[in-house]
């Protein structure tokens, strides 16, 4: 005779636990960890290199690069002044998981860093499900992708702590209506700060960088 047993648990509970361990390590080291979630081509690596330049001399930044394969992005961020960088190749997996970040942390000296930017695999669907131990989830979209992203990928917007629109210099050339994008974003997330930037022209990057630096000071209780 079979028995029916109620459980009620998050399906990814063991990932949540691993993420909590990572978060404790970041907190203990006084490091602000940022999980960057975006589709392919939104400008994740460009935003990271722009932030590295903007925060040069103010914060020591390490980068964890998640990618399907290759190390081209790691080379780019090191050239742009990253204090340290670790490449995670997921071997086809479409998102990073907390265990992968835990392994990457074995290769990063957190005591020599203030901020760790984690570039997730380019995908707006599933990275949102896997907590990595970050204090901040950053959702990055680009104007060139169109204004319908919140409608198509709602949970990425609802759980993010900050939402950034890149390639804003192209807004006149592409189908991106602010009047359609922002009300949908605010329906999902009434409080997250919003930034419009262009990594190509540098517009708006200073504002994003100073917000991030303020969050770092907040995290350290300064």
């Amino acid at each position, binding site marked *: *005779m*079979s*028995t*029916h*047993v*109620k*459980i*009620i*648990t*998050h*399906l*990814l*509970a*063991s*990932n949540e636990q691993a993420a909590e361990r990572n978060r404790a390590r970041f907190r203990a080291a006084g490091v602000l960890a940022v999980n960057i979630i975006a589709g392919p081509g939104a400008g994740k690596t460009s935003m990271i290199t722009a932030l590295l330049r903007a925060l040069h001399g103010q914060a020591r930044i390490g980068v964890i690069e998640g990618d399907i394969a290759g190390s081209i992005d790691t080379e780019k961020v090191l050239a742009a002044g990253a204090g340290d960088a670790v490449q995670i190749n997921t071997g*086809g*997996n*479409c*998102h990073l*998981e907390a265990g992968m970040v835990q392994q990457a942390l074995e290769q990063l000296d957190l005591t020599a860093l203030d901020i760790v930017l984690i570039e997730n695999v380019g995908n707006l*669907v*599933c990275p*949102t*499900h*896997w907590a990595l131990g970050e204090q901040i989830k950053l959702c990055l979209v680009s104007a060139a992708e169109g204004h319908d992203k*919140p*409608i198509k990928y*709602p*949970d990425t917007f*609802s*759980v993010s702590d900050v939402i950034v629109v890149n390639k804003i210099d192209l807004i006149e050339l592409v189908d991106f209506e602010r009047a*359609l994008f922002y*009300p*949908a974003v*605010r*329906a*999902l*997330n*009434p409080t997250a700060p919003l930034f419009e930037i262009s990594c190509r022209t540098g517009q708006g990057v200073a504002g994003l960088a100073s917000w991030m630096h303020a969050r770092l000071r907040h995290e350290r209780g300064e």
Partner: protein
Amino acid sequence: MHELSIAAYLLEAVDGHARQLGASRILTINLLVGTRAGVVDESLQFSFDMLAPGTLAEGARIVTRRSGMRFHCAGCATDYDPGDGDFRCPHCGTFGQVVDDGSSLLIESIEIDP
């Protein structure tokens, strides 16, 4: 594609629970999955069936209950599911506030043999 990762976590979780309960076999796994969680039932079962042999969950059937998105419209004092459309209230056309973003991913229960 990510169903394979989800299946691996699901298997680890239910196998652990079943062992704690002293079960000999898991027959059914009942999930609650949001309509916008990006999980395809067939892919999840397919992935699970690849990973489960040799565990207590070998041959287990995954039954998924779906929960939709829910928004609240303050003006109309009502909740609504926007379905596939944008997030406007179907009655007054203004944007409500999200109550459930449709991303649930829960194990609700398992059916086991002692």
